[in-house]
């Protein structure tokens, strides 16, 4: 009477069904996932080596990669040009701190994964966001999916990611993409929809094709919002690296995991601090890229 009328059988069957789907995908689409794996690694591995100052591949000269001081120099230069002197000084200090604490190589591994995931997220998310802004139907369909992606605990898709791609960097990157892409899609969509209706009307009235409308009016005007989306995307990707280190991604997350596993609180804390410092640097720099545009436009 006071028990909820539950049917364990339905839940069981449903979960079995999904197991079946995943198995089926793993078996039948293996070549596809191998190809994706190879593609991601082709992007990620050289980037990682490049940032860590190692030869890009066996037998390649080392001078093709960046020594640590050049990485710092280039980053500080970018910070100085986009965000001004204060952020450049902050970047220098944080970077030197990372190096002194012995976290520089870990930080570069994390940066490589974050960059790769962000690039893939932009390549996928930007077109989806644009399409969502142009079509209300697409918007209505994508909204609940994005909600699910944002609220679904990431551990849930880490496992199938391992089944599909095997342990290592690729499932980490793909899981990061899934976790980090929703804000980019949402903000791209929002940015384009927010473009002043009269400006869009004007562009059409003067004979723009829909492609011209997008490239000459909507995207430039939505740029600050899209940049905010990319910023959010990078931040979320950074936050994901600790979790991804559980499935074989290297980087600062490994330090955190090791610290937890060995009950070395200080070590874990330092790793976490490294992530925070990275986050501050990247956030300030990417934010100012969006802002410098914005102040010019409004």
């Amino acid at each position, binding site marked *: 009477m006071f028990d909820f009328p539950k049917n364990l059988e339905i839940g069981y069957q449903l979960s079995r069904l999904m197991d079946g789907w995943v198995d089926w995908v793993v078996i039948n689409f293996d070549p596809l996932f191998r190809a994706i794996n190879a593609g991601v690694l082709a992007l990620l591995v050289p980037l990682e080596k490049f940032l860590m100052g190692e030869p890009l591949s066996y037998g390649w000269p080392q001078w093709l990669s960046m020594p640590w001081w050049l990485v710092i120099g280039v980053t500080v230069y970018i910070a100085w040009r986009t965000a001004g002197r204060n952020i450049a000084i902050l970047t220098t200090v944080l970077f030197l701190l990372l190096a002194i604490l012995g976290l520089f190589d870990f930080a570069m591994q994390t940066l490589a994964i974050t960059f790769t995931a962000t690039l893939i997220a932009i390549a996928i998310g930007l077109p989806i966001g644009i399409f969502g802004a142009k079509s209300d139907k697409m918007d209505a369909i994508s909204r609940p999916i994005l909600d699910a992606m944002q609220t679904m605990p990431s551990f849930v898709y880490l496992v199938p990611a391992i089944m599909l791609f095997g342990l290592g960097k690729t499932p980490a990157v793909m899981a990061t993409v899934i976790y980090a892409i929703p804000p980019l899609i949402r903000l791209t969509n929002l940015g384009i929809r927010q473009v002043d209706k*009269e400006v869009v009307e004007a562009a059409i009235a003067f*004979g723009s094709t829909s492609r011209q409308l997008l490239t000459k009016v909507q995207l430039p005007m939505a740029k600050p919002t899209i940049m905010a989306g990319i910023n959010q995307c990078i931040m979320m990707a950074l936050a994901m690296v600790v979790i991804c280190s559980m499935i074989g991604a290297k980087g600062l997350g490994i330090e955190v995991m090791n610290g937890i596993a060995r009950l070395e609180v200080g070590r874990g804390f330092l790793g976490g601090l490294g992530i925070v410092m990275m986050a501050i640097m990247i956030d300030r720099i990417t934010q100012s890229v969006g802002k410098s545009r914005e102040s010019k436009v409004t």
Partner: protein
Amino acid sequence: MAVESAPDIRISVRNLWKLFGNNDKALLQEDWVKTASKAEIQEKTGHVIAMREVSFEVAVGKVFVVMGLSGSGKSTLVRALNRLVEPSDGIIEIDGEDILQYDNEQIIAFRRKKIGMVFQHYGLLPHKNVIDNVAYGLEVQGMEQLERHKIASEILDKVGLSSWEYSYPYQLSGGMQQRVGIARALALDPEIMLMDEPFSGLDPLIRREMQDELITLQAQVQKTIVFITHDLDEALKLGDHIAIMRDGAIIQQGTAEEIVTKPADGYVKEFVRDISKTKVLKVGSIMKKPKATIQESQSPAEALQIMKSEGLDYTFVVAETGELLGALNLAQVESAVEKGFETSNRAINKSCPRVLKYTLIDDVIPLVAKQNTPVAVVNDHGILLGEIEQSSVLSSIASS
């Protein structure tokens, strides 16, 4: 459907309907919709009616003003003319072609060549500077930058913004931004300009200035203009022809004079109530025929006799063609008779004041006020048509 248009008609709109909603075309097949009220349609179908059987014609080089309050459908109407809004039913013929039959490519070509548009909030591209904004319509056509900047810079010169080419819109005042908007439309050298409440967002002083400038500009460029406004004064000032819209339908169209003197219904009457008639009425509408005129060949003695018999102390002298030569007063005639002149025209005052028949009454008030004799009204060829007196001008002011 090819319907013959008179050659000097540029825009011909017939039976245009617009219902906002997903099922507009099918709904218009149902008879009850055609006569139902706006509220009834909305309640029964969820559709909002924005245009109801709108028909009008605009001749080449004329300014057609559509006047209405918000929600009257005037913005929808102007957007239908370049198909920013797709009408539900009807015909829009521009130079004899029904633009509603155009496919996507044709409509883009049409917008690029034939029709320019000016927006209420200017609609400028905030990330482009002034010259690139003006050249935008040329840019999307694929014109080279050097060439399009040359054209844009000429147009900017015309609207008085030549030193602002490389400023951004946010650096400009509202009036200047709207000049950029007008320049952008002119850069395409279109035959038709659509202006959607272009001056509504401006201060009253700037607004008047812009209206005057538009009149000057229009005299130079002679475009066919469809001008939307909610301001009756603006409509009367700018429009060769005025249409008044309410709830999607045109309830009256005609010249400014017709609208003010013969309002079609109570709604229009209420609108024009505060309009001073002297600002709309032309001299021709209050002039009277002179009781008598003197032919130049008649002798002073004959003139004196005519004036005495009609009880006039002031009259006009005309040539055989009817052309006004001058005026005579009683004293002049009497002295001419004494001097023994053979014809009257030796005695006349050739510089007597005269006004053209389509001058606004408002503009002749100062002249008439200081003149204690009647003022002659003539047409473009100097032919005497009639006269106006202080009393008739006063009564036209009093009746408004």
